[in-house]
Protein backbone atom coordinates (compact mmCIF):
# COMPACT_ATOMS: atom_id res chain seq x y z
CA UNK A 1 0.00 0.00 0.00
CA UNK A 2 2.70 2.39 1.06
CA UNK A 3 4.57 1.55 -2.06
CA UNK A 4 1.71 2.64 -4.25
CA UNK A 5 1.24 5.88 -2.43
CA UNK A 6 4.92 6.49 -2.72
CA UNK A 7 4.86 5.68 -6.40
CA UNK A 8 2.02 8.08 -7.00
CA UNK A 9 3.77 10.78 -5.04
CA UNK A 10 6.98 10.34 -6.97
CA UNK A 11 5.18 10.48 -10.29
CA UNK A 12 3.27 13.54 -9.17
CA UNK A 13 6.53 15.13 -8.14
CA UNK A 14 7.99 14.41 -11.54
CA UNK A 15 4.91 15.94 -13.10
CA UNK A 16 5.45 19.12 -11.14
CA UNK A 17 9.06 19.16 -12.13
CA UNK A 18 7.89 18.96 -15.71
CA UNK A 19 5.39 21.76 -15.20
CA UNK A 20 7.97 23.97 -13.60
CA UNK A 21 10.45 23.27 -16.33
CA UNK A 22 7.98 24.05 -19.06
CA UNK A 23 7.16 27.25 -17.32
CA UNK A 24 10.80 28.11 -17.22
CA UNK A 25 10.91 27.87 -20.97
CA UNK A 26 7.64 29.42 -21.90
CA UNK A 27 7.29 32.42 -19.67
CA UNK A 28 8.44 35.65 -21.20
CA UNK A 29 10.69 37.27 -18.66
CA UNK A 30 12.99 36.54 -15.84
CA UNK A 31 10.66 37.45 -13.00
CA UNK A 32 7.79 35.36 -14.22
CA UNK A 33 10.11 32.47 -14.93
CA UNK A 34 11.10 32.59 -11.32
CA UNK A 35 7.52 31.84 -10.38
CA UNK A 36 7.55 28.62 -12.28
CA UNK A 37 11.00 27.77 -10.98
CA UNK A 38 9.33 28.06 -7.62
CA UNK A 39 7.10 25.15 -8.55
CA UNK A 40 10.14 22.95 -8.96
CA UNK A 41 11.49 23.95 -5.62
CA UNK A 42 8.26 23.56 -3.76
CA UNK A 43 5.75 21.14 -5.15
CA UNK A 44 8.11 18.99 -7.16
CA UNK A 45 10.54 18.55 -4.40
CA UNK A 46 7.92 18.16 -1.71
CA UNK A 47 6.01 15.43 -3.50
CA UNK A 48 8.88 13.44 -4.84
CA UNK A 49 10.84 13.57 -1.65
CA UNK A 50 7.82 12.53 0.40
CA UNK A 51 7.38 9.66 -1.97
CA UNK A 52 10.94 8.60 -1.52
CA UNK A 53 10.68 8.92 2.24
CA UNK A 54 7.62 6.72 2.23
CA UNK A 55 9.41 4.25 0.08
CA UNK A 56 12.16 3.98 2.62
CA UNK A 57 9.68 3.41 5.38
CA UNK A 58 8.35 0.45 3.49
CA UNK A 59 10.92 -1.69 5.23
CA UNK A 60 10.71 -0.26 8.69
CA UNK A 61 13.63 -0.21 11.08
CA UNK A 62 15.45 2.46 13.02
CA UNK A 63 18.00 3.20 10.35
CA UNK A 64 15.37 3.61 7.69
CA UNK A 65 13.27 5.74 9.95
CA UNK A 66 16.14 8.08 10.53
CA UNK A 67 16.81 8.15 6.81
CA UNK A 68 13.22 9.16 6.23
CA UNK A 69 13.58 11.89 8.77
CA UNK A 70 16.70 13.06 7.02
CA UNK A 71 14.78 13.23 3.77
CA UNK A 72 12.17 15.33 5.48
CA UNK A 73 14.95 17.50 6.79
CA UNK A 74 16.16 17.96 3.25
CA UNK A 75 12.73 19.23 2.35
CA UNK A 76 12.76 21.58 5.30
CA UNK A 77 16.14 22.94 4.42
CA UNK A 78 15.25 23.45 0.83
CA UNK A 79 12.08 25.19 1.87
CA UNK A 80 14.25 27.49 3.88
CA UNK A 81 16.96 28.06 1.35
CA UNK A 82 14.95 28.18 -1.84
CA UNK A 83 12.90 31.29 -1.05
CA UNK A 84 15.99 32.94 0.29
CA UNK A 85 17.85 32.23 -2.88
CA UNK A 86 14.89 33.36 -4.97
CA UNK A 87 14.64 36.51 -2.95
CA UNK A 88 18.32 37.14 -3.40
CA UNK A 89 18.05 36.66 -7.13
CA UNK A 90 15.08 38.96 -7.47
CA UNK A 91 16.74 41.54 -5.33
CA UNK A 92 19.78 41.30 -7.53
CA UNK A 93 17.61 41.70 -10.59
CA UNK A 94 15.92 44.81 -9.23
CA UNK A 95 19.24 46.31 -8.18
CA UNK A 96 20.73 45.49 -11.52
CA UNK A 97 17.92 47.45 -13.09
CA UNK A 98 16.25 44.61 -14.93
CA UNK A 99 12.82 45.79 -15.91
CA UNK A 100 9.94 43.35 -15.49
CA UNK A 101 8.07 42.35 -18.61
CA UNK A 102 4.86 44.21 -18.95
CA UNK A 103 1.82 43.39 -20.90
CA UNK A 104 1.44 45.61 -23.90
CA UNK A 105 -1.86 47.32 -23.60
Amino acid at each position, binding site marked *: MIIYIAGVLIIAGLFFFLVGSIGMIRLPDFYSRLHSAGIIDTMGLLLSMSGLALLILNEFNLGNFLSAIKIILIIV*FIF*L*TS*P*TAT*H*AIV*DAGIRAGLKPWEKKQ
Partner: protein
Amino acid sequence: MKILGTITILLCGGLLIFFTSDFPDFGDPKSPASIHLSPYFIEHTLEDTAVPNIVTSVLADYRSYDTMFETTVILTAGLACFLLLRIPTKEVTRRYYLHEPTGVTLRFDGDRYPKGSNVFKRIDSNWVPYDIIINFTCRLLIHFIQIFALYVVAHGHYSPGGGFQGGVVIGASIILFAISSNLRASIKRLGEKAAAIFTATGVFIYAGTGALCMVIGEHFLNYSFLAPLLGTDRIMARSHGIFIVEIGVAVAVMAVMIWIYYNLSSAGKQDEGL
Protein backbone atom coordinates in the same frame (compact mmCIF):
# COMPACT_ATOMS: atom_id res chain seq x y z
CA MET B 1 46.09 31.36 -30.73
CA LYS B 2 42.68 30.01 -31.62
CA ILE B 3 44.07 28.04 -34.51
CA LEU B 4 46.88 26.72 -32.41
CA GLY B 5 44.43 25.67 -29.75
CA THR B 6 42.21 23.96 -32.25
CA ILE B 7 45.09 22.07 -33.76
CA THR B 8 46.33 21.05 -30.33
CA ILE B 9 43.02 19.75 -29.18
CA LEU B 10 42.34 17.97 -32.42
CA LEU B 11 45.68 16.22 -32.23
CA CYS B 12 45.46 15.38 -28.57
CA GLY B 13 41.82 14.44 -28.77
CA GLY B 14 42.38 12.19 -31.74
CA LEU B 15 45.24 10.52 -29.97
CA LEU B 16 43.26 10.06 -26.79
CA ILE B 17 40.20 8.71 -28.55
CA PHE B 18 42.39 6.38 -30.53
CA PHE B 19 43.92 4.97 -27.40
CA THR B 20 40.59 4.42 -25.70
CA SER B 21 39.91 1.55 -28.07
CA ASP B 22 42.11 -0.76 -26.02
CA PHE B 23 40.47 0.06 -22.74
CA PRO B 24 38.65 -2.57 -20.82
CA ASP B 25 34.93 -1.92 -21.11
CA PHE B 26 33.38 0.55 -18.76
CA GLY B 27 32.66 -1.29 -15.52
CA ASP B 28 34.42 -4.46 -16.47
CA PRO B 29 35.03 -6.39 -13.24
CA LYS B 30 37.91 -8.29 -14.79
CA SER B 31 40.04 -5.32 -15.73
CA PRO B 32 43.56 -5.26 -14.26
CA ALA B 33 42.70 -2.25 -12.20
CA SER B 34 40.02 -4.21 -10.40
CA ILE B 35 41.90 -7.39 -9.76
CA HIS B 36 45.45 -6.46 -8.92
CA LEU B 37 45.58 -4.26 -5.90
CA SER B 38 42.12 -3.14 -4.90
CA PRO B 39 40.85 -6.56 -3.72
CA TYR B 40 43.34 -6.37 -0.93
CA PHE B 41 41.83 -3.15 0.32
CA ILE B 42 38.30 -4.38 0.04
CA GLU B 43 38.88 -7.67 1.76
CA HIS B 44 41.20 -6.51 4.49
CA THR B 45 39.88 -3.16 5.53
CA LEU B 46 37.83 -4.57 8.37
CA GLU B 47 40.55 -6.87 9.63
CA ASP B 48 43.25 -4.25 9.38
CA THR B 49 41.55 -1.10 10.44
CA ALA B 50 37.97 -1.87 11.46
CA VAL B 51 36.70 0.83 9.17
CA PRO B 52 33.85 -0.19 6.87
CA ASN B 53 34.31 2.74 4.56
CA ILE B 54 37.10 1.49 2.37
CA VAL B 55 37.76 4.89 0.92
CA THR B 56 38.37 6.29 4.36
CA SER B 57 40.60 3.44 5.39
CA VAL B 58 42.66 3.66 2.24
CA LEU B 59 42.75 7.42 2.39
CA ALA B 60 43.78 7.78 5.99
CA ASP B 61 45.63 4.60 6.65
CA TYR B 62 46.99 2.66 3.70
CA ARG B 63 47.75 5.80 1.79
CA SER B 64 47.74 8.18 4.71
CA TYR B 65 50.99 9.69 3.60
CA ASP B 66 49.31 10.93 0.44
CA THR B 67 46.58 12.47 2.47
CA MET B 68 49.00 14.23 4.75
CA PHE B 69 50.42 15.96 1.75
CA GLU B 70 46.97 16.57 0.39
CA THR B 71 46.35 18.55 3.54
CA THR B 72 49.67 20.21 3.05
CA VAL B 73 48.62 21.19 -0.45
CA ILE B 74 45.70 22.99 1.08
CA LEU B 75 47.97 24.65 3.58
CA THR B 76 50.23 25.67 0.75
CA ALA B 77 47.34 27.17 -1.12
CA GLY B 78 46.32 29.17 1.92
CA LEU B 79 49.81 30.44 2.45
CA ALA B 80 50.16 31.17 -1.25
CA CYS B 81 46.99 33.26 -1.36
CA PHE B 82 48.10 35.09 1.74
CA LEU B 83 51.56 35.75 0.39
CA LEU B 84 50.25 36.87 -2.98
CA LEU B 85 47.30 38.96 -2.01
CA ARG B 86 47.51 40.22 1.51
CA ILE B 87 48.00 43.94 1.76
CA PRO B 88 48.26 44.97 5.36
CA THR B 89 46.37 48.24 5.44
CA LYS B 90 46.82 49.86 8.76
CA GLU B 91 45.47 53.12 7.47
CA VAL B 92 42.22 53.26 5.65
CA THR B 93 41.86 56.68 4.19
CA ARG B 94 38.11 56.72 3.93
CA ARG B 95 35.57 54.94 6.02
CA TYR B 96 31.83 54.96 6.04
CA TYR B 97 29.78 54.80 9.21
CA LEU B 98 26.14 54.33 9.82
CA HIS B 99 24.63 56.25 12.64
CA GLU B 100 22.31 53.55 13.81
CA PRO B 101 19.60 55.55 15.59
CA THR B 102 19.00 57.80 12.61
CA GLY B 103 20.17 55.65 9.74
CA VAL B 104 22.36 58.42 8.41
CA THR B 105 25.51 57.40 6.58
CA LEU B 106 28.58 59.43 7.38
CA ARG B 107 31.94 59.55 5.71
CA PHE B 108 35.15 60.03 7.65
CA ASP B 109 38.45 60.81 6.04
CA GLY B 110 41.81 60.02 7.53
CA ASP B 111 41.79 58.60 11.02
CA ARG B 112 39.08 60.80 12.42
CA TYR B 113 36.59 57.97 12.63
CA PRO B 114 34.78 57.31 15.90
CA LYS B 115 36.61 54.63 17.79
CA GLY B 116 34.75 52.42 20.20
CA SER B 117 31.41 54.10 19.70
CA ASN B 118 28.20 52.19 20.12
CA VAL B 119 25.98 54.25 17.95
CA PHE B 120 28.20 54.30 14.92
CA LYS B 121 28.45 51.16 12.91
CA ARG B 122 31.12 50.66 10.32
CA ILE B 123 29.72 49.86 6.89
CA ASP B 124 31.23 49.01 3.56
CA SER B 125 31.82 51.76 1.05
CA ASN B 126 29.40 50.11 -1.33
CA TRP B 127 26.93 49.33 1.32
CA VAL B 128 23.81 47.29 0.89
CA PRO B 129 20.98 47.82 3.31
CA TYR B 130 20.56 45.19 5.89
CA ASP B 131 18.57 42.39 4.28
CA ILE B 132 16.65 40.66 6.98
CA ILE B 133 15.50 37.67 4.97
CA ILE B 134 18.88 36.51 3.88
CA ASN B 135 20.47 37.37 7.15
CA PHE B 136 17.96 35.56 9.23
CA THR B 137 17.87 32.43 7.12
CA CYS B 138 21.58 32.19 7.09
CA ARG B 139 21.84 32.66 10.83
CA LEU B 140 19.40 29.85 11.22
CA LEU B 141 21.10 27.54 8.81
CA ILE B 142 24.68 27.99 9.92
CA HIS B 143 24.14 25.82 12.98
CA PHE B 144 22.69 23.00 11.03
CA ILE B 145 25.42 23.23 8.50
CA GLN B 146 28.01 23.11 11.21
CA ILE B 147 26.48 20.28 13.14
CA PHE B 148 26.04 18.42 9.93
CA ALA B 149 29.68 19.05 9.09
CA LEU B 150 30.81 17.71 12.42
CA TYR B 151 28.60 14.71 11.89
CA VAL B 152 30.26 14.16 8.54
CA VAL B 153 33.68 14.35 10.14
CA ALA B 154 32.76 11.96 12.90
CA HIS B 155 31.05 9.40 10.71
CA GLY B 156 33.60 9.19 7.97
CA HIS B 157 34.25 5.62 9.03
CA TYR B 158 30.76 4.39 8.26
CA SER B 159 29.35 6.58 5.57
CA PRO B 160 30.71 8.81 2.87
CA GLY B 161 32.45 11.83 4.15
CA GLY B 162 35.31 12.47 6.42
CA GLY B 163 37.65 15.17 7.42
CA PHE B 164 37.96 16.93 4.14
CA GLN B 165 34.28 17.08 3.33
CA GLY B 166 33.38 18.09 6.85
CA GLY B 167 36.05 20.73 6.89
CA VAL B 168 34.84 22.21 3.64
CA VAL B 169 31.28 22.32 4.94
CA ILE B 170 32.31 24.13 8.11
CA GLY B 171 34.34 26.49 6.02
CA ALA B 172 31.34 27.02 3.77
CA SER B 173 29.19 27.80 6.78
CA ILE B 174 31.52 30.57 7.84
CA ILE B 175 31.75 31.80 4.27
CA LEU B 176 27.97 31.85 4.31
CA PHE B 177 28.08 33.94 7.44
CA ALA B 178 30.49 36.32 5.78
CA ILE B 179 28.25 36.61 2.75
CA SER B 180 25.02 37.02 4.65
CA SER B 181 26.23 39.63 7.11
CA ASN B 182 29.53 41.11 6.09
CA LEU B 183 33.17 40.26 5.97
CA ARG B 184 34.21 42.22 9.01
CA ALA B 185 31.70 40.50 11.25
CA SER B 186 33.03 37.20 10.14
CA ILE B 187 36.64 38.26 10.64
CA LYS B 188 35.71 39.39 14.12
CA ARG B 189 34.52 35.91 14.90
CA LEU B 190 37.32 34.01 13.29
CA GLY B 191 40.16 36.24 12.29
CA GLU B 192 42.89 35.74 9.83
CA LYS B 193 45.39 34.96 12.51
CA ALA B 194 43.14 32.31 13.98
CA ALA B 195 42.59 30.86 10.54
CA ALA B 196 46.30 30.66 9.89
CA ILE B 197 46.99 29.09 13.24
CA PHE B 198 44.13 26.64 12.81
CA THR B 199 45.53 25.68 9.46
CA ALA B 200 48.93 24.99 10.85
CA THR B 201 47.37 23.17 13.79
CA GLY B 202 45.37 20.95 11.53
CA VAL B 203 48.35 19.86 9.52
CA PHE B 204 50.29 19.59 12.71
CA ILE B 205 47.74 17.23 14.21
CA TYR B 206 48.13 15.02 11.19
CA ALA B 207 51.87 15.14 10.87
CA GLY B 208 52.33 15.09 14.62
CA THR B 209 50.31 11.90 14.87
CA GLY B 210 52.60 10.46 12.24
CA ALA B 211 55.68 11.60 14.07
CA LEU B 212 54.30 10.26 17.34
CA CYS B 213 53.89 6.87 15.73
CA MET B 214 57.44 7.14 14.52
CA VAL B 215 58.71 8.05 17.95
CA ILE B 216 56.79 5.35 19.78
CA GLY B 217 57.04 2.67 17.24
CA GLU B 218 58.43 2.06 13.90
CA HIS B 219 57.04 3.82 10.90
CA PHE B 220 55.74 7.22 10.18
CA LEU B 221 51.94 7.27 10.51
CA ASN B 222 51.71 3.64 11.61
CA TYR B 223 48.83 4.17 13.99
CA SER B 224 48.92 0.70 15.44
CA PHE B 225 51.71 1.88 17.69
CA LEU B 226 49.33 4.32 19.27
CA ALA B 227 47.51 1.40 20.88
CA PRO B 228 49.12 1.81 24.32
CA LEU B 229 48.30 5.51 24.32
CA LEU B 230 44.72 5.05 23.31
CA GLY B 231 44.22 2.00 25.46
CA THR B 232 42.86 -0.20 22.71
CA ASP B 233 44.07 -3.05 20.62
CA ARG B 234 46.10 -2.44 17.50
CA ILE B 235 43.23 -2.62 15.05
CA MET B 236 41.08 -0.18 16.95
CA ALA B 237 44.13 1.98 17.36
CA ARG B 238 44.24 2.25 13.60
CA SER B 239 40.59 3.19 13.54
CA HIS B 240 41.11 5.87 16.15
CA GLY B 241 44.26 7.03 14.49
CA ILE B 242 42.28 7.56 11.33
CA PHE B 243 39.76 9.55 13.31
CA ILE B 244 42.44 11.75 14.81
CA VAL B 245 43.98 12.58 11.48
CA GLU B 246 40.53 13.22 10.03
CA ILE B 247 40.04 15.84 12.68
CA GLY B 248 43.34 17.34 11.70
CA VAL B 249 42.29 17.42 8.07
CA ALA B 250 38.96 18.97 8.98
CA VAL B 251 40.53 21.73 11.04
CA ALA B 252 43.10 22.52 8.38
CA VAL B 253 40.67 22.49 5.50
CA MET B 254 38.10 24.57 7.32
CA ALA B 255 40.61 27.20 8.25
CA VAL B 256 42.21 27.34 4.83
CA MET B 257 38.90 27.68 3.02
CA ILE B 258 38.02 30.58 5.23
CA TRP B 259 41.45 32.10 4.89
CA ILE B 260 41.45 31.90 1.13
CA TYR B 261 37.96 33.34 1.04
CA TYR B 262 38.94 36.26 3.22
CA ASN B 263 41.84 37.04 0.99
CA LEU B 264 40.01 36.57 -2.27
CA SER B 265 36.84 38.37 -1.34
CA SER B 266 38.61 41.44 -0.03
CA ALA B 267 41.53 41.31 -2.47
CA GLY B 268 43.88 41.04 0.45
CA LYS B 269 42.72 44.03 2.45
CA GLN B 270 40.54 41.98 4.79
CA ASP B 271 38.53 45.04 5.50
CA GLU B 272 35.56 45.07 3.27
CA GLY B 273 34.65 42.72 0.53
CA LEU B 274 31.99 40.61 -1.12
